[in-house]
């Protein structure tokens, strides 16, 4: 095992020895990255290690989610501070973008490049950085010991507390944070409420502040308007290609996949046509998205020319390592893909499995299974566990079971010689179900009429009438 792993890692170096420089292309990095979980709304715990926060306050009414995406190029931990600020945890970014001053220049340059006016500050606590940024104080320090001293001169307005509180403080003659920090805390809590005291503790680093990490949009959504209306499905498929490509890229960036896609075709007059395709497993691969969508489109009759298309992804789900078959044999299908393709074209209900049920009534001893389990069957060796079978030693069951037992006419009963003794021996009696109103009392026989077929018939014990229930094919 160990040796095998080592060989894989050194493959690029050993390749030249075989004389073929291009024999071993570098492996795709996706599978390694695939084990990373998708970013979720998890609280950031800043006390694990000394944290360092970059706060940036934008002028005007910025589009924070869009800016957060930019910020995510520097750190994975970006948090929105409504209405106009972002907080970035940058301790981990220093190794790549450091030192501190340079990191800050890089970040500030990003906003400048976007043409947005912004003020920033770096401090060991979230609120200290945010307050400094709001106050225009260009603090850039990772020193927790001197933090409180740097805050003393900040005007109270930078706390963004509500006007009522600020008014109270102003009437007390308090102008700066330093004045506030000197006051006894119990009195402060009474006058301003516990929230303000908590804010102060966070700012000076006495208390950590858990912040929610920003998670990018959870769905892919794109609308494409056509200059000329599209009347053929084949052209639609082609028009969809770039959208699907962007969708796949969107998913790849997030190490995520989807299990469904919704497509809306907009027409000039009519209601939009809505299509929905499901995937048997979470996927983000463009060929697979395109193929299943194409299958679905293939059986669509366009009610009218299409003016625009809208593609919506389902909820993003983390990709499991299995669904990325970067090293897999390519070309060959998996069972999943087969089932998916069949379902996309024939409909969900048209593709199903069957399973046994613990039940003596033959018609209730099985059921359809829509949720196909694609993992390897538990009981290797073919035979399901005995519990799932009503009674294995019972009379063999017919492969074809009629949906409803067919009442045999007098003549048929005679022809099958059911009344005579040589046509029937050793019946299996099934008498059950009296408790739920669907009781049965039947004697089942396996008979072989003269022409060679083998049938499964039963005699209703109360009415004495005969029924055909199945065929041994």
């Amino acid at each position: 095992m160990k040796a095998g792993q080592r060989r894989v890692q050194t493959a690029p170096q050993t390749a030249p020895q075989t004389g073929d420089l291009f024999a071993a292309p570098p492996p795709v990095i996706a599978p390694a990255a695939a084990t990373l979980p998708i970013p979720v709304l998890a609280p950031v715990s800043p006390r694990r290690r000394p944290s360092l926060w970059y706060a940036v306050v934008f002028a005007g009414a910025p589009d924070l989610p869009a800016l957060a995406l930019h910020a995510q190029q520097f750190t994975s931990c970006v948090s929105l501070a409504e209405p106009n600020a972002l907080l970035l945890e940058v301790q981990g970014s220093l190794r790549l973008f450091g030192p501190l001053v340079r990191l800050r220049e890089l970040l500030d340059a990003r906003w400048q490049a976007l043409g947005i006016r912004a003020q920033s500050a770096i401090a060991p606590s979230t609120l200290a950085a945010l307050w400094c940024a709001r106050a225009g104080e260009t603090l850039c320090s990772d020193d927790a010991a001197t933090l409180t001293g740097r805050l003393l001169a900040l005007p109270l307005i930078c706390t963004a507390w509500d006007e009522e509180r600020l008014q109270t403080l102003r009437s007390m003659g308090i102008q700066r944070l330093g004045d506030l920090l000197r006051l006894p805390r119990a009195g402060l809590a009474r006058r301003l409420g516990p929230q303000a005291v908590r804010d102060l503790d966070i700012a000076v680093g006495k208390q950590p502040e858990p912040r929610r990490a920003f998670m990018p949009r959870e769905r892919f959504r794109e609308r494409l308007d056509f200059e000329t209306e599209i009347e053929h499905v084949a052209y639609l498929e082609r028009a969809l290609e770039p959208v699907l490509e962007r969708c796949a890229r969107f998913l790849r960036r997030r190490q995520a996949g989807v299990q469904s896609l919704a497509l809306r075709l907009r027409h000039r007059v009519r209601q939009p046509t809505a299509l929905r395709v499901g995937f048997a497993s979470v996927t983000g691969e463009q060929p697979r998205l395109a193929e299943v969508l194409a299958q679905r489109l293939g059986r669509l009759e366009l009610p009218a020319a299409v003016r625009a298309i809208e593609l919506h992804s389902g909820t993003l789900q983390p990709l499991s390592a299995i669904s990325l078959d970067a090293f897999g044999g390519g070309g060959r299908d998996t069972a999943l893909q087969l089932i998916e393709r069949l379902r996309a074209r024939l409909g969900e209900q048209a593709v199903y499995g069957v399973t046994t049920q613990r039940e003596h009534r033959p018609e209730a001893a099985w059921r359809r299974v829509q949720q196909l389990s694609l993992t390897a069957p538990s009981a290797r060796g073919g035979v399901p566990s005995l519990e799932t079978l009503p009674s294995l030693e019972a009379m063999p069951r017919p492969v074809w079971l009629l949906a409803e037992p067919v009442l045999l006419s007098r003549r048929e009963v005679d022809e099958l010689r059911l009344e005579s003794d040589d046509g029937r021996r050793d019946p299996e009696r099934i008498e059950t179900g009296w408790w739920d109103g669907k009781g049965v009392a039947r004697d089942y026989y396996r008979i072989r009429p003269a022409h060679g077929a083998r049938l499964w018939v039963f005699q209703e014990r109360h009415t004495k009438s005969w029924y055909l229930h199945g065929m041994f094919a």
Partner: protein
Amino acid sequence: MPRESSSLADLLADARVWKLKDASASHRLSSSRPVWSTGKSGLDARLPGGGWPTASLVEVLIDVNGLGELQLFLPALAESQRRADGEVPWLVWIAPPHEPYAPALAQQGIELGRLLVVRPPSATEALWAAEQALRSGVCAAVFLWLKGTDDRWLRRLKLAAEEGGALGVLFRPERHRFESSPASLRLLMTQGEQQPRLELLKVQGGRPGLVDLGAS
């Protein structure tokens, strides 16, 4: 005359010309594949290799359901699922005439978790589904029940079966008996005096004729 002066290469490039070399190559390919015993010694003896060929198309002409036509295949399928090293292969039944009865299949050793039933809305969709399943490479066998279909589609199924290494079995009514078929095996099953009558209509690499099924 241009027709007479055409070279051999031109001639072979014509799609209408069937090259014997290719035919024998594909035959060699399929005969090197494993065969599955039918469970009936009388039938095994008549089939080249001694059983059902895999990666090929078999056609069963039958008018009445319940003559034991599935019994010819089920033991082989159960065996193929049991013996598989690695992934257990799938069985796909397309447009069966009745519901496949799960307890019966379980009794015969079929892995139900690897059985897929497909109910397509039309014959064309059924053929499409069969082609997809045969070609996928994850199926041991694909059964297809059809009222009728043309030669062109059967050829596609045969190619798909060879490509995917699956056994394709097509059940059709007896009236198609005299149509040409690319299937490598054609069987006719009819009602007999005491037991069903099985006749081999076409056997690639074998001899057609009646088969003695023996007591069963």
